[in-house]
């Protein structure tokens, strides 16, 4: 009775199409787009506040803030003078391509050098959804434990950079930087690892140098 029709269509195809469009858009505009991901509370917003303030004279930067609720984070980063737009996912565990398309409509992207997307705090789902970004960046705070790259591998596998944040807490927590780094490199041998304490503005120079290099590479791709 029933006939079988072969389909073979990727369940994520709608998002992949949007991500490809966004990637083209960022290429055309020469915007370096970075997707910042971490658990809730790892320090994404504090790192952004520092970065936006410290590099304000060097780059024009904009931020898309993803959270389930509230515009607290958009207010925090906007206080540095950068353009910011808040996306509330209303319970959704990740940002997807259509949310980024909508958010970009609200930003003035002319002359923007770097667009930061602060994803929903979640060490799992955001890694599955491409947003057309040039790089994924994972922030892991030392209070979370050095076994997290091993337990939540995909995000570390796909990221160009792992920032180990809150290193000022190292004397108080059982976190071995070498262990965490080894786990991350086992998944992704090219991952760049920068230990920082964003709240204390410590170790940020290496991160800023990486940003300058990534921005230069994006411009060179013109």
């Amino acid at each position: 009775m029933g006939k079988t029709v072969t389909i073979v269509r990727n369940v994520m195809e709608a998002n992949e199409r949007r991500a490809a469009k966004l990637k083209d858009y960022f290429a055309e505009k020469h915007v370096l787009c970075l997707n910042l991901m971490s658990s809730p509370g790892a320090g994404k917003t504090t790192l952004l506040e520092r970065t936006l303030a410290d590099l304000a004279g060097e780059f024009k930067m904009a931020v898309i803030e993803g959270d389930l609720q509230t515009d607290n984070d958009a207010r925090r980063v906007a206080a540095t003078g950068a353009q910011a737009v808040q996306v509330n996912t209303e319970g959704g565990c990740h940002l997807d391509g259509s949310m980024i398309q909508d958010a970009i409509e609200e930003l003035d992207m002319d002359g923007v050098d770097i667009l930061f997307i602060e994803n929903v705090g979640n060490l799992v789902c955001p890694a599955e959804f491409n947003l057309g970004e040039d790089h994924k960046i994972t922030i892991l705070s030392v209070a979370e434990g050095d076994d997290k790259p091993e337990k939540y591998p995909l995000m570390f596998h796909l990221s160009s950079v792992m920032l180990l944040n809150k290193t000022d807490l190292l004397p108080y927590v059982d976190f071995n930087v070498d262990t965490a780094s080894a786990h991350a490199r086992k998944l992704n041998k090219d991952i760049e690892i920068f230990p920082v304490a964003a709240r204390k503005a410590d170790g940020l120079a290496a991160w800023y140098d990486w940003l300058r290099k990534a921005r230069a590479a994006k411009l060179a791709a013109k």
Partner: protein
Amino acid sequence: MHELSLIESMLSIIREERDKHHMKRIERVRVVNGALSGAVTDALAFGWECLTQEGDLKGVKLDIVDAPLQVVCGSCGKPFTPEDAHYMPCPACGEILGHDIKSGRELYIDEIEADIDDEPTVAEDAPTIGE
């Protein structure tokens, strides 16, 4: 964790294919889920059950085929199937880093089993009269 939104994407693909192939009643849908897709088979099955309780796709069966992980060694180039998705020593040279993942990330709708109208009753481009 986001399996419900994956099911929603699947349902919209299924509706598109249903219209394209003039399917009447859909019996079952087969999905291939790779070991590294990030979607948990049990959660997909549960999400499917929730979202097909009512509506135009009520009662359609979902078969989920788990697809194994296949990689090519980053050092010696030997293809192999790791036993563990996270620790993957190459059986030939022992390398654990830098393998190229050939399959295991996929999540796709493979096929749909349905009653199909071979000759659609009303062609979409049929001329309309009296308008």
